[in-house]
């Protein structure tokens, strides 16, 4: 039992990472119907910014701040120079998708060029001493930090989307972009904001993973990016709570399979489970079949 509870905790902290990345996929998809394949690499950018910020001896809040702002600027720039010109020319969706894959390869190879392909240890910022809870469950400080900060980010995002003017405009754009423009919404501005928020969340996840694992490399975004994308689809692509839930389920499935079955089966079973969910509900857990929403 305590073993099970322990794995739940582990699953939630891994799930936080997937959920934070999945949010960027789902928000961008909700707004412009693009699967931004460069998003996993934005998370890698966040991890590297965090790495250098810690090495420079900056305090934790400032590290997170930088590791969110720099990826946000990357996201903003990629959208502006790579995706926007295609949109303005009404390019087919496949062109945007190929461009996204191109941006992903660009970021990965830029990382290899600048930082070498070798993994490097993330600075140890916290003691490894876990905190013991009743029932034999232990939680490490990086795990607590991950869970707490992820909760803060998710709650802030939810409130932002629900109550601010910009959040309402984002929901409107995802439901009917043309009608939103007729209301006077500047759609380019909303798209920029979406990329900024999504990329900042991925950047935060990058630092968290550095603290949790703790090892980073330029290609580290590929697998988590893929899994987070699948998580977003599971939750219902375009739906924010769906990305949160999908990410958590993904992390949980992976952790439980590793703990109780075998780590070789980890990805196969995790993905298999997700296929089953999609067979039952093709539009994802929170997805509506007719429409996608933020």
């Amino acid at each position: 039992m305590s073993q099970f509870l322990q794995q739940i905790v582990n699953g939630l902290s891994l799930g936080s990472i997937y959920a934070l990345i999945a949010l960027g996929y789902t928000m961008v998809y909700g707004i412009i119907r693009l699967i931004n394949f460069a998003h996993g690499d934005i998370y890698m950018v966040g991890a590297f910014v965090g790495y250098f910020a810690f090495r420079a001896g900056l305090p934790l809040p400032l590290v997170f701040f930088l590791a969110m702002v720099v990826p946000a600027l990357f996201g903003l720039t990629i959208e502006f120079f790579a995706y926007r010109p295609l949109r303005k020319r009404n390019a087919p969706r496949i062109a945007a998708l190929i461009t996204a894959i191109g941006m992903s390869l660009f970021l990965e190879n830029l990382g290899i060029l600048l930082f070498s392909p070798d993994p490097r240890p993330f600075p140890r910022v916290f003691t490894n001493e876990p905190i013991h809870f009743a029932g034999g469950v232990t939680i490490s400080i990086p795990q607590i930090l991950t869970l707490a900060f992820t909760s803060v980010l998710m709650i802030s995002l939810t409130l932002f989307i629900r109550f601010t003017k910009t959040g309402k405009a984002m929901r409107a754009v995802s439901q009917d972009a043309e009608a939103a423009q007729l209301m006077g919404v500047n759609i380019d501005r909303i798209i920029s904001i979406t990329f900024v928020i999504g990329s900042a969340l991925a950047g935060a996840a990058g630092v968290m993973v550095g603290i949790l694992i703790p090892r980073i490399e330029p290609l580290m975004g590929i697998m988590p990016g893929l899994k987070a994308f699948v998580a977003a689809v599971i939750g219902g692509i375009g739906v924010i709570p769906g990305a949160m839930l999908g990410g958590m389920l993904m992390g949980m499935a992976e952790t439980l399979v590793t703990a109780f079955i075998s780590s070789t089966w980890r990805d196969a079973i995790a993905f298999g489970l997700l296929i089953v969910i999609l067979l039952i509900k093709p539009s994802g857990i929170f997805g509506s079949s007719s429409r996608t929403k933020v």
Partner: protein
Amino acid sequence: MRKGEIVTLIGANGAGKSTILKTISGLLQPREGKVFLEGEEISALAPHQIVARGISQVPEGRRVFPELSVLENLVLGAYQRKGKEHLNELERVFELFPRLKERKNQPAGTLSGGEQQMLAIGRGLMARPRLLLLDEPSMGLAPLLVKEIFAIIREINAAGTTILLVEQNAHMALSIAQSGYVLETGEIVLSGSAAELVRNEEVRKAYLGL
């Protein structure tokens, strides 16, 4: 178009009426020709800049945001207005459409077709436009409801908003408009005062079924 009037644009399905409205609103760029608002050329402006100049469109098929509440839909209509400026307009819209007030917290997608049309018009008014573009507000509505909507269009106009009313229901449209244009396959083929158009032989045959 003259200020203060209701002008109607009538034409069969596919004549290009919605295309004209989308071009005015900046959703489409004109391939040729220009759009002017009180002497200022607005052809190349983005949709949000057109709204800022006082032109609102109530699009064909209502296009309310189905998962936003009625109130959120209305507030979005006033997207470019600062602070609490829009609250007066909200009062006015609720006076025009009391049913929207009763349902203000309901998702717009759960409203009936007539209520959605009211919401779409109310949402268009929230920007306090100088010129309101209405694209087939009678589409798919029962005759009684059409009457109600048209009475409200007249009321909105009487309060000082210029209206460009696109309709297939030429009879209703000409009954409230001061002047009109007839559109066929993308070309204006006739124009004149509403009274002239109602008397016109071709209009009577083709659009009024007389």
